[in-house]
């Protein structure tokens, strides 16, 4: 059964002007990602995976081509529309966590809700519930510097989850973690997928990509391969 399409890009290109030269970061890339997929976007640096991730995450728009996000045309969107769609539909998880250093875990998780206009009491409740869901129920009042790397990434994941977004976009989520903690985070992503979330994992590490169900390999701004991962396990 084909699931509902969340991301639908067709022949998109991204061209950067470097002086007089035009550099193709992406060439005619087409891709569909459906609801509750678990995708790894893989490739070495310079392969265009970061550019693709930024476009998928609505931080950037393609130079050419078509991008439909839940049937909405992203290419024609203004900065404000993009901000809204990021706020509503996309949860970012970064390699360096990007937490506000002076805010505690709850306040960090609340941040997207602040911009969606939710009332303070409601968003606090939601943030606390989400922190419990990622296993940080006992760390809510801790500031980032009082948390371990793994715990920080859990806070960041809770922040990505709190708006109940259409996709979670994780950029090298284990890059700053040791192997054991990284594995724990990958188990958490697996659980999130089981709960029905759509996850896009961006990485250059084969080992990390192996956690995903579908692996898209990129090279030189093109999709090299797009295959199901035979080694995928439900954890």
């Amino acid at each position: 059964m084909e699931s509902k399409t969340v991301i639908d890009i067709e022949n998109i290109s991204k061209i950067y002007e470097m002086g007089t030269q035009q550099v193709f970061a992406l060439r005619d890339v087409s891709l569909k990602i459906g609801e509750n997929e678990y995708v790894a976007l893989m490739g070495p640096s310079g392969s265009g995976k970061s550019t693709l991730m930024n476009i998928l995450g609505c931080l950037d728009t393609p130079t050419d081509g078509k991008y439909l996000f839940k049937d909405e045309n992203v290419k024609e969107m203004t900065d404000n529309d993009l901000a809204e769609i990021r706020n509503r539909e996309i949860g970012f998880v970064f390699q360096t966590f990007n937490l506000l250093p002076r805010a505690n875990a709850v306040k960090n998780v609340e941040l997207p809700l602040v911009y969606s206009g939710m009332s303070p009491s409601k968003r606090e409740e939601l943030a606390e519930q989400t922190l419990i869901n990622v296993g940080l129920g006992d760390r809510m009042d801790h500031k980032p510097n009082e948390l371990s790397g793994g715990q920080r990434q859990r806070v960041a994941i809770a922040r990505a989850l709190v708006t109940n977004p259409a996709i979670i976009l994780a950029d090298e989520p284990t890059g700053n973690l040791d192997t054991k903690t990284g594995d724990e985070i990958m188990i958490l992503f697996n659980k999130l997928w089981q709960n029905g979330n759509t996850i896009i994992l961006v990485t250059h590490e084969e080992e990390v990509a192996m956690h995903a169900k579908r692996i898209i390999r990129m090279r030189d701004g093109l999709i090299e391969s797009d295959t199901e991962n035979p080694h995928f396990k439900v954890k």
Partner: protein
Amino acid sequence: MNIFESVLMAFGSIREHKLRSFLILLSISIGVFAIFGAGTFVTAIDNTVQNEMSALGDNTFQIKRMPSIQMGRMSRRKYWRRPRINFKQVEELKQRVNLTPFISTSAEGGGEIIKSRYISSDPNVSLVGADDIYFVNYNYDLQDGRAISSADIEYKRNVAVVGTDVIKKIFPNLNVIGETITIKNQQFEIIGILKEKGAVLGNSQDNQVIIPINLYLKYYADWRLSLNVTIKASDKVNLDKTIDQTIGAMRIIRNLKPWEDNDFELETNDTISEQFSGLTSFLTVFGMLIGIFTLVAAGIGITNIMLITVKERTKEIGLRMAVGAKRKWILLQFIIETITICQVGGVIGILIGLLVVWIATIFTGMTLIIPIDWISISIIIATVLGLVSGFYPAYKASKLDPIEALRYE
């Protein structure tokens, strides 16, 4: 996301960046303090002096050698050449001006020591030489005894009218009519006690001793002294005529040729308050200028500090954008942050200003007026300053590319 939350966020950020906040607060406070302090102080002086001057009465004017308030060096040289006004000239003036009988003269010296048979006063009592009309012209009321009479002048009687502060200092009680006081080896009999009036600009009017003008000139004045003449017209209608007659008489007395300027000064309440408002507006402008320069410097400093802040928080801005902050919210956040911190600085400046003005009023005996208008002006200035100096950094923050900002280290 509303304004209230932005303000809360701003306070959080103020607490988080203590040094930065302190520097901004300091510069704003100084600027607002300069403007607020000058404004309030001038208002206070104005009020006090207006009250004081209306005591003189509308129909009264003065003849003096030099104007009460002088500004600038050039004018001083001109005034110093003028001949002094002596007692003989005053007596002649009294004969020549027939439109009003209220022509008084007085002279005042610095601090004197007044002795009773018990104790001496501090050397800060002002000794005034005056004639009988002086008490009329200056509306002096006595709470006991009588004023100096023309007979006292004529017969050169050693009599004195004394202020209550002096009496309290050198006598055990206020029952002192007929007592003797000694001023520089001259003895005077107390014939009257002045009604308590309170202090004006730090001069207590109750801390004075008034003796007959001719005795004052004989014992306490030297050749440098020039008398002041106070003339009260019989009514408002006669004021201009009386002024004209007085000027004519003075010119004859002082042998001025028709083409020569007056070599004396004629002051009415209006001319004094004119001179005075010249002085106060000078003070106001001076305070404003200092304040404005300080605030401009502060504004540039704030812009700088906020630019650094935006740079430091580039990654945070990128994150906020990634999780859905629109550019206008980023703009608003930084502007509100700057305005908030400027307003806090403004309030501190106002508090310091109030404190200084309050201390000043204690020392000068002026009444403290809480200047609502200057408080609002100061707050508005601080707000506008925050808006102006915060706009460019905030604009820069709002124009950051979220991808670049997230990658910023």
